[in-house]
């Protein structure tokens, strides 16, 4: 499979997400309320050698993608690693309306493509309910739309969805997701998980290969189920031709200092690291510390 970028620049810092500290998250969200401050940080990252961006399809992603598309000539070398969906959007819709009406709203408010109109004509949700794969494809279309026109390498499915589906152990859903993304969008499928050993063993069992797996990987085992040892073993035995592994939460939300964190990461058979930072000093430090074996 095509090799992915070794270092990918993440986005949590821009959207008021900090798992350790609400105050820090709040301060960041104030700073990045002005979207031009987000672009400034991207420019600092690019200037220091980063060529890849992971971006979740949240409320602000549309505007960010629009900016990079509008300035294509300046950013044509950047590779994109979007993740879908934005879980909180669904969480709120589901809380308000229930699961199927929420899906309904996302699909029908965001798509005007022929396939959807046809589906409505045939009886809307009742029809879609009988064909969950079609429903999933329509949801992907709705979420992917904002990334069209960017140089997308991998399309990731968020861990809340991956791990939920993993618990059900249904092969078809994973298989169809990967096939759809490969065929329709010509990008590598990616899966984010907090259960890497389990997910990888299921993908192998199901014969689903050439997938990028992104997972929290840090030496204290934070957000790593079942535990660090299982992760290390799984990663050691992995063939990157089948699955490329991207590490996230390498600092465990700041619990580990960068030096120690990357000593651990660099020893493992990992193909890529995604990290977020908003200060040039921290961006450069991480770039210098990441020294993967590939």
């Amino acid at each position, binding site marked *: 499979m095509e090799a992915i970028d070794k270092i990918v620049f993440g986005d949590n810092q821009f959207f008021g997400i900090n*798992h*350790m500290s*609400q105050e820090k998250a709040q301060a960041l969200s104030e700073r990045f309320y002005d979207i031009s401050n987000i672009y400034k940080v991207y420019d600092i990252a690019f200037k220091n050698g980063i060529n890849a961006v992971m971006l979740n399809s949240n409320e602000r992603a549309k505007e960010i993608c629009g900016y990079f598309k509008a300035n294509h000539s300046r950013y044509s070398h950047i590779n994109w690693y979007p993740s879908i969906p934005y879980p*909180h959007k669904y969480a709120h819709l589901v809380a308000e309306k229930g699961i199927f009406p929420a899906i309904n709203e996302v699909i029908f408010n965001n798509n005007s493509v022929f396939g959807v109109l046809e589906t409505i004509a045939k009886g809307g949700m009742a029809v879609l309910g009988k064909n969950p794969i079609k429903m999933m494809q329509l949801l992907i279309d709705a979420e992917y739309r904002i990334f069209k026109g960017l140089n997308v390498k991998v399309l990731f499915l968020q861990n809340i969805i991956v791990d*939920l589906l993993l618990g059900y152990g249904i092969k078809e859903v994973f298989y169809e997701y990967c096939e759809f993304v490969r065929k329709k969008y010509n990008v590598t499928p990616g899966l984010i998980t907090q*259960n890497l050993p389990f997910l990888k063993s299921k993908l192998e069992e199901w014969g689903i290969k050439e997938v990028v797996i992104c997972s929290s990987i840090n030496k*204290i085992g934070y957000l790593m189920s079942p535990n660090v040892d299982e992760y290390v073993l799984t990663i050691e035995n992995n063939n990157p031709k089948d699955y490329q592994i991207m590490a996230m939460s390498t600092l465990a939300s700041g619990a580990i200092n960068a030096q120690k964190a990357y000593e651990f990461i660099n020893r493992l058979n990992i193909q890529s690291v995604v990290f977020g930072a908003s200060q040039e000093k921290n961006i450069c430090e991480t770039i210098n510390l990441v020294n993967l074996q590939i």
Partner: protein
Amino acid sequence: MDKVKLGIIGMGRMGITHYSIINSYKSVDIVAVADASNLILDVLKKYIPQLGVYKDYKELIDVEKPDAIIVCTPPVSHFEICEYACEKGIHVFCEKPFTVSPVDAQKLSEAFEAKGLINQVGYVNRFNDAFTFTRKLVKENVIGDIIRFRSEMFSCTISKKEEGEGWRNKRENGGGVTYEMASHAIDLVNYLIGTVGSVQGTVMTQVYSKVVEDIVSSTLRCSNDVYGTLYVNWCDKSYRKPSNKLEIFGHKGKILVDQHGIKIFMNEGNDQYGYHIGWNTIYITDIFTPVPFYVRGYEFTRQLYYFVDLILGLREEPICTFKDGANVLQSIHGMFKDNLKN
């Protein structure tokens, strides 16, 4: 018993999550689900052909004879489902707020205990590392005797004016911030400080909802004579995710805790924990314990595995029983009554 035959009643948001989590437990066999909607049943049947699917929970129980069920239907139906399960000798995990009547809740608690059946309510914060650790600190008297507390919960669950006839227009469907969210904030007081005995000065405010309340505040008096306040708002857009916050003020210091960590201010040092005078921070990464399978948060896995472990006899001490559920309902109904006076 070495394998638990399990049924899930109600395949909405929580049922779907619980299925995924508990299906990862090797000693559990999910034999069937029940739901009023054909949509979800059709999808499940299509991909999991061996799974029994039922519109009627009684039929599920009669035909499949599960050892245990997880109940995640709207709260108004919890009483009859739990009662039926009890008659048939089935262990029950029931979602919060358990029932919509403290009398029913108490009845169920007694009935399950009399039959020796495992009974658990889904107050998931009791399985969160930050709150569990706080409980340990309080029990060990690290901040001394508790003088006052504040229990708050915020979310942006409701962000628009209500349209049509949704679940929100009736309290009995779990509508209203008090049933849906204040229940968590009250249970945490019961868990960390002492069972709430009475309430006063309750005020309920509508923001977006037409019938039920969106904000509730009250003064709580615990059985150990400690007073504190409650403030819960489910339409606060400054919160991305639901968040519980507690401030516990004691003779020797105070604790600020939420799902993600703890800050302790100490009036004097504590050698046992290495806390110095002034502020000490405990991050979730310092105190978390891993879970075998992660879907929505450590605590969600832990609470369901715990339920199964109790059934299998691998654990003995229940953490969140029907009695705990009944205690919360007592306070909630106290607040409904009190609000009418104010």
